[in-house]
């Protein structure tokens, strides 16, 4: 984009090359941090309003127009709260854990192609990097549960470990199914393939649809949301791994959960629904509208995840593992084979 190009040239004319590139990186990080905070806050509000509508309520609509400032007020309140801790907590790990969770979420954010130009970090192993980063987040949860010196937090954290390690497999395999069609892990390449031959979910028809279903189920489990919220399980574990956290540290976990949901939906948008591409190319000549399409598709998928949350009851831990190891994993492997055959025989739909 022109603005970023101008800033880039201005920075490089102002100072030596190394300083300029460092300053540029910091600026980009700050911009993403701002997007991160705003997106997190408004996703919390969206979740609360959608939950209310599912339950025939109205939701928060008092602070600001239609409650738009509600989460800002909540965040301000959390900033002003005391940071408590348990007496025998492992102080170092206890304080480190929230940052683990939030930094991994922030790192994953930088990879998404919001439009063709607005793409901060186009690494050539994009999908692989995303999967790797999103599983580091669970270390933060494990640390939080372990260092809290609280049995409920520990049980929650251990469940989180079991759950994330199991479902990571399904997320990876379902994305791999789609990578078979693109032949590249780089996100910009994946979008390019879709620009030429239609969205991947159309190109890959039946196996792509199965992969999408599996991805959404496993992705919901990955973010520890209902119906897979065994980690927090309010009715049995208090609040799970973040029982002992308060104030801003609690807010970090809370925000990270919503950003993770955004990340899962964004990966699905990029890999299955053509990222910033408009349907049938209706706004092809206005590239800036790509942001609108990207966010629109992502929000639709986020809504789907909220729909899951307010429909399905929580699974038991054994049901959770049966679902992954007996159903999703074999189906996924079969699906992968099917997709490989289809790509080999050229049965994909091309426009």
């Amino acid at each position, binding site marked *: 984009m022109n603005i970023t190009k101008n800033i880039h040239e201005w920075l490089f004319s102002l100072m030596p090359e190394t300083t300029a590139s460092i300053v540029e990186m910091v600026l980009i990080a700050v911009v993403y941090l701002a997007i991160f905070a705003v997106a997190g806050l408004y996703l919390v509000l969206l979740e609360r309003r*959608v939950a209310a*509508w599912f339950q*025939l*309520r*109205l939701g928060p609509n008092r602070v600001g127009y239609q409650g738009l400032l509600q989460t800002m007020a909540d965040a301000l309140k959390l900033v002003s709260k005391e940071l408590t801790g348990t007496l025998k907590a492992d102080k170092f790990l206890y304080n480190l854990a929230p940052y683990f969770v939030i930094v991994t979420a922030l790192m994953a954010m930088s990879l998404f192609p919001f439009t063709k130009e607005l793409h901060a970090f186009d690494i050539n192993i994009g999908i692989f990097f995303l999967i790797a980063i999103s599983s580091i987040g669970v270390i933060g949860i494990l640390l939080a549960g372990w260092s809290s010196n609280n049995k409920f937090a520990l049980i929650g954290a251990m469940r989180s470990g079991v759950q994330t390690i199991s479902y990571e497999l399904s997320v990876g395999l379902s994305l791999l199914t789609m990578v078979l069609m693109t032949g590249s892990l780089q996100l910009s390449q994946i979008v390019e393939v879709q620009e030429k031959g239609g969205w991947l979910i159309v190109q890959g028809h039946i196996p792509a649809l199965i992969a999408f279903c599996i991805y959404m189920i496993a992705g919901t489990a990955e973010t520890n949301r209902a119906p897979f919220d065994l980690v927090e399980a309010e009715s049995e574990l208090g609040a799970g791994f973040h029982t002992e956290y308060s104030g801003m540290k609690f807010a970090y976990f809370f925000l990270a959960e919503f950003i993770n949901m955004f990340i899962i939906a964004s990966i699905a948008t990029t890999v299955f629904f053509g990222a910033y591409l408009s349907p049938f190319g209706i706004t092809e000549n206005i590239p800036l509208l790509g942001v609108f399409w990207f966010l629109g598709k992502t929000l639709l998928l986020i809504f789907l995840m909220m729909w899951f949350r307010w429909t399905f009851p929580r699974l038991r831990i054994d049901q959770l593992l049966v679902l992954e190891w007996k159903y999703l994993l074999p189906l996924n492997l079969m699906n992968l084979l099917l997709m490989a055959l289809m790509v080999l025989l050229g049965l994909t739909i091309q426009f």
Partner: protein
Amino acid sequence: MSYFSDIYNGVKTLLTGMSVTGKYFLHSRKGAITQQYPDNRDTLKMFDRFRGEVVMPHDENNEHRCTGCQKCELACPNGSIEIIWDRQVDPETGKKKKMIDQHIYHLGMCTMCGLCIEACPTDAIKWAQNFENSVYDRAYLTRVLNKPGSKLMPGVED
């Protein structure tokens, strides 16, 4: 091979559940059950079985249906109702008859159990729908249910 039919049934039931909640979501605008109370104070209508306080309805001639039988006073488990009565000469028949002077109701003691209303043989008292019962002085919670100068509706005792 129940494996694949299990998957089919699982997906089917999940979709059924989602369609139910989806319908609720789409109708939430019209059917929201939330009352935005201080805003809709003028139009707010409580549901029929709501128990606000005990009242004694009077008709346009300032007549009520209470015969002073004291069944409500006996039925009340914590003594919220006191009836002050005396025997007066009935102007129509000229005989002495039991009549209520004051039907006193202590709202502050009432547990809203509704036994008095069930016990009343003449339906003289019933539930009101109002709920803004807070006052600044406890004395205001003691209420006289029959209006001053009211008398028994003719024909209730027959």
